[in-house]
């Protein structure tokens, strides 16, 4: 096969396209997402709107959905038992914020991947940054530190205190804010609990 040779004009055009692709953009200010979120309110769709959107959203088919209804119910129950309960009665809820109590409190699970740590606590604005944080439990199965909080609707700042000295932000948190003392706090926003799942 003969070689394909580019003329000078084509070479230039390709070079220009390559250089444009390599342009380095300036970083957006850290506070941007936080400022945007401060200006918006959670949407509160009507039942009709929800139904309409549900109809327009393509359904994903899982093998479980192909089982007969009775078998599915048994499987779900067994799965729930496995996921939600551990030995010695310790309750594990799915990650995120997805349970609403009678008092309007939402159950929040926080995780930290620090297998080297011997002691981890969550500290934050939910208890006015009290020195006495919420102690996290080591979940052997997940290989993670886990904390379960019950919080009202609102916005919270928090951080993890590792081995009683090191303050670290939550690497899973979407939003962070400088605390003014050289650390970053993670931000957690809890919605209205109106049947809408809210994530960290």
């Amino acid at each position, binding site marked *: 096969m003969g070689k394909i040779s580019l*003329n*000078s*004009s084509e*070479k*230039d*055009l390709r*070079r*220009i*396209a*390559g*250089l*444009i*692709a*390599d*342009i*380095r*953009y*300036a*970083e*957006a*200010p850290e506070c*941007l*997402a936080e*400022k*945007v*979120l401060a*200006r*918006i*309110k*959670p*949407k*509160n*769709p009507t039942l009709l*709107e*929800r139904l309409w*959107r549900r109809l*327009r*959203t393509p359904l994903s088919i899982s093998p479980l959905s192909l089982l007969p209804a009775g078998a599915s119910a048994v499987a779900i129950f067994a799965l729930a038992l496995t996921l939600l309960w551990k030995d010695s009665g310790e309750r594990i809820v799915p990650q995120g914020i997805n349970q609403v109590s009678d008092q309007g409190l939402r159950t929040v699970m926080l995780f930290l991947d620090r297998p080297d740590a011997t002691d981890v606590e969550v500290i934050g604005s939910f208890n006015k940054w009290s020195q006495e944080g919420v102690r996290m439990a080591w979940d052997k199965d997940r290989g993670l530190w886990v904390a379960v909080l019950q919080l009202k609707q609102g916005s919270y700042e928090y951080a993890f205190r590792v081995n009683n000295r090191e303050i670290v932000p939550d690497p899973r948190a*979407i*939003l962070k804010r400088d605390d003014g003392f050289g650390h970053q706090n993670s931000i957690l*926003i809890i*919605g*209205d609990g*109106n049947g*809408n*799942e*809210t*994530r*960290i």
Partner: protein
Amino acid sequence: MASGEETLVHEILSGDVNSYALLVKRYQKPIYNLMLRMTGSEEDALDLTQETFVRAYEKLEKFNPSASFFPWLYTMGLNLARDFLRRAKGSPIESYELENSSSIESDHDDRLADQIDGQHLLQALQTLPIDYREALLLRFHEGLSISEVAYALGLSVSAAKMRVHRGVLKLRRLLMKQ
């Protein structure tokens, strides 16, 4: 559509503002840089970027979730920036129209490919008319398809293809002058 965006949009419309934070994080950089190019001011760029995301959130019900979010967002940002410049009576970024595109093809030799670098390219881009500059950046920097460029800039597909092609030729000519 970028991975998971349809689900994110569904979650946002169901009341989950945190999912919107993910979209903001994903696209804040190109939108902020668009505003920097348009205004030349970090402060104005931050304000306009915020405004773009807030406006997009308010109009999200009108967005077709099976389409790409970024071109839709970009259109909104570009319109906001243009309104801002109109109010400010003129862009701080000087741009000049080149001669008719039929005269753009150059007789210059083939030394350009070795001479141009990123710095020259940036300077030349800033002197291109906005429509050409943005078409080139969307196509080659953001990696949008021609049909997405067309959507973002409110053009037909053939017009977008022409805009990109002419944009590269204009840029080449500018670079040769430097």
